[in-house]
């Protein structure tokens, strides 16, 4: 008996969460996939009607905007946050005094909820209250910074707020990576008289490849599921210029009673996530087998 328990305790302990995940994650993914092939409106219906919802989805200019915004926002956010995080990490890595305090200051935005970040930036970027009004108050009457209310630029305000929120976190990741590089190699390079910037570009950064990958995965899923930041900062406006797939899905499911549309947009979002995560998982699993 004890032997049986010993062997099976881990399985028994894991079983409930395994079943829960199976139902509440994969089960509901399957349910959403099913609903996305139906003509569900207010309540879900289960008669398969083919790809009608996907056809409607890709004929909708609003979904077009949402998908474009996702790529603009995702790429800029990931690239800039990573570059900025790396630069901050390298600067902090120079054995400066009060490193701990500075690190905390940069990491602090991560502790705020996206709603707070969005609301604060909404006030900062509002032309009548924030930066524009302040600079004009200094006497520069022609100064204009109206990105928040300009449909062509509004998406970039979301990029700004998201970077402010996340680059400190990326910095912390990279800082840990920098510290984990073997000191002996760096010393050997210094003895050989190699300039510091070369040490970074040729030795330290290449050996941090796994950290880059982790940072990329974390940031890209943050970008794809972004919702609260948009709601707080622009509410999807002006017009629907800053809609993202997540806000589109919310509008369809909860405001418009169009569950089929919401389900099909959710499936597309999931495919985008898979397109990023699956190659990563694949490379991870393969490297373990080696």
């Amino acid at each position: 008996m004890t032997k049986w328990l010993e062997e099976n305790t881990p399985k028994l302990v894991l079983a409930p969460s395994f079943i829960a995940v199976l139902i509440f994650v994969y089960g509901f993914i399957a349910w959403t996939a099913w609903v996305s092939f139906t003509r569900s409106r207010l309540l879900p219906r289960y008669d398969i009607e083919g790809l009608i919802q996907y056809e409607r989805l890709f004929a909708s200019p609003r979904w077009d905007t949402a998908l474009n915004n996702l790529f603009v926002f995702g790429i800029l956010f990931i690239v800039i946050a990573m570059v900025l995080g790396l630069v901050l990490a390298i600067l902090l890595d120079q054995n400066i005094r009060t490193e701990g305090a500075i690190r905390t200051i940069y990491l602090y935005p991560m502790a705020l909820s996206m709603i707070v970040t969005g609301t604060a930036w909404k006030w900062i970027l509002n032309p009548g209250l924030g930066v524009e009004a302040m600079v004009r108050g200094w006497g520069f009457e022609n100064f204009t910074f109206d990105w928040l209310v300009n449909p062509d630029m509004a998406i970039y305000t979301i990029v700004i707020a998201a970077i402010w929120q996340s680059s400190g976190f990326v910095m912390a990741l990279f800082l840990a990576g920098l510290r984990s590089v073997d000191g002996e190699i760096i010393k050997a390079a210094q003895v050989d008289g190699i300039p510091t910037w070369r040490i970074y570009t040729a030795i330290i950064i290449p050996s941090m490849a796994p950290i880059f990958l982790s940072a990329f995965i974390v940031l890209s899923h943050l970008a794809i599921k972004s919702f609260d930041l948009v709601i707080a900062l622009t509410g999807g406006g002006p017009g629907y210029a800053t809609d993202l797939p997540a806000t589109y899905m919310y509008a369809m499911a909860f405001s418009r009673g169009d569950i089929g549309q919401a389900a099909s947009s959710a499936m597309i979002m999931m495919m985008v996530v898979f397109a990023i995560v699956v190659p990563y998982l694949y490379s991870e699993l393969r490297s373990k087998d080696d």
Partner: protein
Amino acid sequence: MKSVFFGAVSATALIASAVHAEPQAEVLHWWTSGGEAKSVAVLQEEFASKGGTWTDMPVAGGGGDAAMTALRARVLSGNAPTAVQLKGPAIQEWYEEGVLADISSVAEAQGWADVLPASIAGHMKCEGSWCAAPVNVHRVDWIWANADVLEANGIEMPTTWDEFNAAAEKLEAAGVIPLAHGGQAWQDATVFEAVALGILGADGFRKAFVDLDMDTLKSDEMKAVFDQMRTMRGYVDENFSGRDWNLATAMVMNGEAAFQIMGDWAKGEFMAAGKVPGEDFLCASVPGDGFLYNVDSFAMFDVDGDDKQAGQELLAELIVGQNFQKVFNLNKGSIPARTDVSLDEFDSCAHLSAKDMSESSDNGSLLPSYAHGMALRGAQSGAITDVVTAHFNSDMSSEEAVNMLADAVANSM
């Protein structure tokens, strides 16, 4: 002796309640803000005084989105509330899911058909039987103005859109913001439908936003509507994006702006600030003939048990009753849905609204508001609003806008 008497009375009451089940009602609504909550409390007290037990289920947030999510969960689990705050075609949409009750017996006993305007009564019926009770009538096509600002600039309340444009130019030259507006999709849609009513006329409006007639949606008149929207965009201050409607109302109140196009809930803001209609602020229907209504109502869901059905009938009776219609609408700024309620205690704007409602009901220009979900189902009205707000917030041409409008409507079917 006395106690014996009371004992006998309460015993009869007990017997009576065993035979006629005590009315029970669970009411799902999203009237949670100050004035609205007070209005619901009126109904709640009246219900209790008739011996009913009211279970309140207020769900705040998202302009009813959260309440609808709660409703969906309740209906799917087979445990629907007795009555739900629903309006417009959403009532029929739920009816088609087969979950609404038939309250025709109450409606016929109370003679609803005689006291409600025909087009409003139409919304309360599902395939001929009554399934919902109307609470109020909000008029959407109002134009509000600051009386002092108009007087200082020698401007009369405009009666055509050309007059409005001329007045706006004058105000702009005088350094006043002509139109107070908040850049949220539903507010863009509110202005749009007011303009559309003026330019398309009542018949054109019905064809475009009730029947979704493609020729009307693509017509030159519709282009003219978008042209006027483009012109109005110029009369809005540059800082309008995302502004809430009540802040726009405040701009009119303090003279920063001259006009606002908004439903009569804006009147509540003026009143709350102690302004007097006709003196401090003016109300008029927007240029053009017709009346766009936004009617709140309670849809009755299919429930089991005599006590709940009794509660449902009592509730329906009270909602359309004269007393509640008067008290609730005095609180909310709207007018009663039934036409035989005395309007003595109402203000001049409400009198105008009631007069226009009965006139437009007679000549067929009493129309449902598309922007407030009275004319179309969510998917269609949402598709139109997408185009309206995209046009208003960009430099899209009217030509492009009408084509996009027709495509969006077709795609939402």
